[in-house]
């Protein structure tokens, strides 16, 4: 190996190092920014109670018995009180397909975590609202 080829190697390495310094990293600064999710992302569900007729097709089709509709709930007597158990859900999308009244949708929120198991059972109030807007929340860039 000659002197010039070694020098050339050193310069090639230096060029690579400088390029890496000024490049954006491949990884995301996760809790504050996230990658873009496709349209069809099967994340947590949202329930539109105005459209729901409590026909229970989603309950019937769910392979892991994650959905429960409480017909005896007096507060939501006329509408459906839907309980969604995210400790059981496998995000297969069958419930969204089964819904003929456009009352159940997937959202792009895929990172669900809670301190207790009970918090992962989303009640009628939680399943109808998004606790955070996925896109606005993710818009902040740190680097």
């Amino acid at each position, binding site marked *: 190996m000659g002197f010039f080829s070694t020098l050339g190697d050193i310069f090639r390495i230096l060029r690579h190092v400088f390029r890496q310094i000024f490049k954006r990293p491949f990884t995301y600064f996760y809790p504050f920014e996230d990658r873009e999710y496709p349209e069809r992302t*099967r994340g947590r569900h949202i329930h539109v109670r105005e459209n729901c007729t409590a026909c229970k097709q989603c309950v019937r089709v769910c*392979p892991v018995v994650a959905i429960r509709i409480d017909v005896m709930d007096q507060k939501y007597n006329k509408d459906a009180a839907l309980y969604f158990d995210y400790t059981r859900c496998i995000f*297969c*999308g069958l419930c969204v*397909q089964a819904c003929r009244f456009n009352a159940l949708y997937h959202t792009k929120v895929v990172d669900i975590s809670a301190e207790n198991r009970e918090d992962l059972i989303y009640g009628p109030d939680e399943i109808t609202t998004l606790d955070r807007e996925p896109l606005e929340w993710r818009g902040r860039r740190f680097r």
Partner: protein
Amino acid sequence: MKDVLEEATEIWFGPQHVSAHGWAAKLTLVGDYIVECDPNAGYFHRSAEKCLEFRDFRQGALIMERLCMLEAFLAEYPYVSAVEKIAGIDVPDRAKIMRTIMMEASRIHSLQFWWGQFAAELGLFTMLLWPWVDREFFLDAFEELTGSRHAVSYNTPGGVKYDFTDKFLSKLDRAIQRLEERMPKFRDMLLRSPTFKVRTKGIGRFDANQGLRWGISGPNIRACGVPMDLRKDSPDENLTYDMADWEVPTYTNEDHPGESDAYDRMVQRFLEIETSVDIIRQLLPQVPEGEIYERKARGKVNRLPEGEAYGRVEGTRGVTSLYLRTMDKAQTPYRAKIRGPCFNSYYSLKHLVPGNKFADFIVIFGSLDPYPGWWDR
């Protein structure tokens, strides 16, 4: 004369070993050499067949794809095919060709995963990450199509659930282009590597007759030069492999024709990837317009007539099939029996391993492309 077995030690490889996630083998060692290998199944058992008996015909495919997440598009097909045969559902042409394309893409993804994993088992950890980077692009394409990276839930009795979009097609094209650019480079790097040759050549060798007797199928038997492939031998009427012009990939090593060792199986799997890319490239322009789901199927799968059917597909690891039996007006199967491809290759370790060194055990195991989900149903 002293019996060598008096000094033998028994050790368990797995189930806590890093490389043995969900399986264990009892090895009898004399010095560094293995004299007996006793593979044990059952550590990964999830009673999938019983689960299928409690799920209706729409939900069953979800159980099947969870047996092997790496080839999810392929794994759920035998169940779907069997249900379609019993219910007498005609699948639209567009859905047939879409299924075939996605199954081949799934095969490439699974082989890339195995290739990186096998290199890592030999200690070449750089080769673990390079194919896995390319694999990410396939996962991105799957996510664009179905909304999920691994548990795709794509095939359903009567067609497929999600239609191709322009964005998905561009992502798939990008993934294949990247694979075609980078795979030859990595392949030459790996197959010419002296470390790789020393570790794999002549290790775990069996001939075609032995392989067929043990029931090994797929790339493992094709590496012996046997052109056995369900895609060609008995083409499924709901898949469109006949629309592409391709040959069954077989590899014959000139040093020992009719036999395969770990090195030959590696070369064979690169040929498999090339064939799959070839099939996808030919099928993509031929996708016709039309429906992706037969609407009559929605009513038919609620209750099936009495009957039995056998759905099968050439999976990444070999013949994957399922026997389904239903009673009259049944909402759930009476019996479902899964035949996974890896059970036979896993138990062939009993014959392949003795006589080799302990360090070669994981090479032989890895070269058969095993997946515990397929032998512990």
